[in-house]
C-alpha cells in the first residue's frame, strides 16, 4: 500500500510526521533566529571595533571592517587603561557588585525561606501604633527640640504598654502574604523617588563616595528581587525533607544551609547572576552617591560624554571591558540559568 498522496500546500505547511517541523515553519523559524542574532551581535561588534577607532574614523565613517576600510589603533585603549586610571572604578564596580549581590542573595534567601516556612501573624494595630510613635519621635525631635534619646525611650515604653493592653484585643493581623507583598512593593517604586533622601542620609553619615554606601544601597534595592524569585524555589522543596532533617537533629539554620540551600542551587545561581548584572549596570544611584573615590564603571562611561562631545572610542573601550566579564560568567553558569529560573528547585 502506498502512502497517502499530499498536495503541495500540505507538504509545505504541514509537518511530514508528528515529530518534525513543516518546511515553511522551519524556514520562518531560522530566519527569525538569524534576524535576532543580528540584533544582538551587531551592537556588540560595533562597540568592539569602535574601541579601535579614533576621532577621524568615527566622524568620517561609517567604517565596518578593521584592516579593510580603516586602520585600527590602540590609542583609545592606551588612553583609558594606561594614561587614565580606569582600574579604580573597575575595582569599585567589582567590589560593589559582588559584595552587594552576595549580601542580597544571603539575606533575601533567608527572608524568602522564613516567609515560606514560618507563619507570621503581626497584629495590624501593633504596626499602626509603631508607625504613629515613629512619626511622633520625628516630630518631637525635629520641631520641639526634644533630645532624641528621651523621645525614643518614651516611645519604646509606650509601644510596650500598648502591646500588652490594646493590641491583644484587636483581630486584624498582617500575614506572610502581606509581608511578602510589602517587600516586593519596595521595588515597584521608581528608585529616583528615593535618591535624594538616600543621598542626604549618607551625607549625614559621612559615607558619601564610599564603596560601603553603594554596597548597602544596592543590597537594599535588590533584596525584593531575591525574595520574589527564591520564595518559589523554597516552596518547591518537599516539607518531608526538612522535617526528616529536624528529627535527625538539625536546627532550623542547619536545615536551611545543609538541605534547603543546596537543593535550590540552580535557582540561586540564576538569581545571583541576575542581581549581579543589575548591580553591575546600576547607574542612577551610583551617579548620586559617588564622585571620585567610589565611582563605578557606568558613571565613568557616561562621563565620556564630555564638553567636546561624546568620546565614542573611549566609551567603547570602557563598554567592552564592562561587557566581557558578564559574557564570561554567563557562559560558565549557562546550564544553571537555563533550568534555574524556570524549573528552579528540586529534582529527586
Amino acid at each position, binding site marked *: 500500500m502506498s502512502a497517502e498522496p499530499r498536495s503541495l500546500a500540505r507538504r509545505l505547511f504541514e509537518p511530514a510526521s508528528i515529530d518534525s517541523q513543516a518546511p515553511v515553519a522551519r524556514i520562518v523559524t531560522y530566519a527569525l533566529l538569524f534576524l535576532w542574532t543580528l540584533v544582538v551581535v551587531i551592537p556588540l561588534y560595533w562597540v568592539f571595533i569602535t574601541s579601535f577607532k579614533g576621532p577621524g574614523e568615527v566622524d568620517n565613517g561609517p567604517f565596518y571592517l578593521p584592516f579593510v576600510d580603516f586602520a585600527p589603533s590602540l590609542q583609545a585603549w592606551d588612553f583609558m587603561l594606561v594614561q587614565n586610571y580606569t582600574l579604580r572604578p573597575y575595582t569599585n564596580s567589582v567590589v560593589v557588585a559582588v559584595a552587594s549581590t552576595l549580601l542580597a542573595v544571603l539575606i533575601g534567601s533567608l527572608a524568602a525561606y522564613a516567609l515560606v516556612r514560618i507563619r507570621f501573624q503581626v497584629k495590624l494595630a501593633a504596626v499602626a501604633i509603631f508607625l504613629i510613635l515613629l512619626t511622633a519621635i520625628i516630630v518631637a525631635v525635629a520641631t520641639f527640640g526634644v533630645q532624641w534619646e528621651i523621645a525614643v525611650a518614651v516611645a519604646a515604653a509606650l509601644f510596650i504598654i500598648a502591646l500588652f493592653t490594646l493590641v491583644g484585643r484587636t483581630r486584624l493581623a498582617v500575614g506572610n502574604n502581606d509581608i511578602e507583598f510589602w517587600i516586593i512593593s519596595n521595588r515597584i517604586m521608581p528608585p529616583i523617588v528615593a535618591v535624594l533622601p538616600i543621598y542626604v542620609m549618607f551625607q549625614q553619615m559621612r559615607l558619601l563616595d564610599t564603596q560601603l554606601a553603594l554596597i548597602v544601597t544596592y543590597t537594599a534595592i535588590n533584596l525584593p528581587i531575591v525574595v520574589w524569585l527564591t520564595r518559589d524555589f523554597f516552596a518547591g522543596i*518537599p516539607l518531608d*525533607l526538612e522535617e526528616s*532533617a*529536624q528529627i*535527625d537533629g*538539625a536546627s532550623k539554620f542547619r536545615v536551611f544551609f545543609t538541605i534547603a540551600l543546596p537543593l535550590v542551587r540552580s535557582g540561586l545561581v540564576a538569581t545571583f547572576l541576575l542581581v549581579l548584572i543589575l548591580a553591575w549596570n546600576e547607574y542612577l544611584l551610583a551617579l548620586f552617591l559617588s564622585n571620585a573615590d567610589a565611582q563605578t564603571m557606568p558613571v565613568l562611561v557616561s562621563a565620556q560624554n564630555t564638553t567636546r562631545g561624546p568620546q565614542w572610542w573611549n566609551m567603547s573601550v570602557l563598554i567592552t571591558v564592562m561587557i566581557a566579564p558578564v559574557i564570561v560568567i554567563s557562559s560558565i553558569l549557562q546550564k544553571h540559568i537555563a533550568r534555574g529560573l524556570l524549573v528552579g528547585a528540586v*529534582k529527586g
Partner: protein
Amino acid sequence: MRVTLSDIYKSFGAIEVVKGLDLEIQDGEFLVLLGPSGCGKTTALRMVAGLESVSSGRVLIGDRDVTHVLPKYRDVAMVFQSYALYPHMTVAENIAYPLKLRGVPRTERDASVRGAAVKVHLEEFLDRYPRQLSGGQRQRIALARAMVRRPSVFLMDEPLSNLDAKLRGHMRSELKRLQADLGVTTIYVTHDQIEAMTLAHRVAIMNRGVVQQIATPRQIYDDPANLFVAGFIGSPPMNFLQGELVEGTFVCAEGRFATSVAESRKKVTAGLRPEDCRVTGPSEGKIAARVYAVELIGDHTLITCQFGGATVTVKADKSAHYDMDEPIGITFQDSAVFLFDSETGGRIGGRARGEAAA
C-alpha cells in the same frame, strides 16, 4: 523504650483531628496505627515525633515527658512515605547525616554507615545518589538512615505505600525481621489492613480521631469491638444485615436465623464473614438466596448472593461453579454471627470465639 500517649487532643483551627488518644506502647513492641485516611493516625504519629504540637495531653518516651520537647531532642527516627531522602547527598551521606549532626567522629561514622547499609543490603550502592536507585532501594536507604543512630523509637508513616505490590510484600517481611532483630519500639501508621495484620504485635484502629480498639491482630479479627472495626478488617469485608433480635434469633425482612446471643433487642446489625459462610442447596441453608455474580480470584471464588434487598458475599472453593440467578442456600454456624447495636455500633455479647482463640 516505652511510649505513652495520655489523653491527647489535637485541633487544627476549629477541626478536632485527634480526640482523647490514650496509648501505651511497650518497650520493643511493634504497634500499628490503622485507619482510613483522615482518621488522625498520621497526626498522632507526628505528635510523637514532635513535628506537631499537642493541643492538650502528654507524650512520654520512657519516663521522660517530651510533650514540649523539640523533635531533635526526642531521640526518635522517622521513615516517611516519600522516604524524604536528600537528593543532593549520596546514599552514604544520607545515612550518615543524623550521625554527622550529632558530631560522631568520621571513622566511627563510616563504620556505622557501613553496618546499617549491610543490614539493608545496600553496601554496594553507598556512592550512588538516591535518584539512581529503585523505589525499593530508596526505601531501604530511609530505613538505614533511621536505624543508624539506634534511636529509642522508630516512627513509620506509611513507609511501604509507594512500592509496587510485589515489592511491598517483600519489604514487609524484611521490615518485620529487622524490627525483631533490633528490638526497637516501633509505631507504624498505615491504612493497609494486611500490613497491620502481618506486622503488628498490637493494632490500634482509629476512626474520626478516636481509637476504636487496641488488640492483637488475631483479637481484632476474631473479636472486633464494634461495627467499624468489624467492617474495616477483613477482605472481602464482613457482610452486614439489618434487623432485630428476638430471644436469640436474628430476624430481618428477608429471613431469620439463630445466633449464640440469647437476648431480645430492636435495631440490630448482624455480621457474617465471607469465609464463615457456605453455599448449599436452596432448601438446606439458613438463608435462601440467589446468585448475583461469581468471581474467581485464584485460590478461591467469591460468590455474591442476593436475598431480598440485602447482599451477602460468600468465599467458596476455587472449583465452585454457579450460574447467575441460580437459587441457593447459605449456611453458617450460630457462633459465626457477630451482633452489633445498629445505633451505637457497639458489639452485643462479648464473644466466645475470641476467647477460645486467645
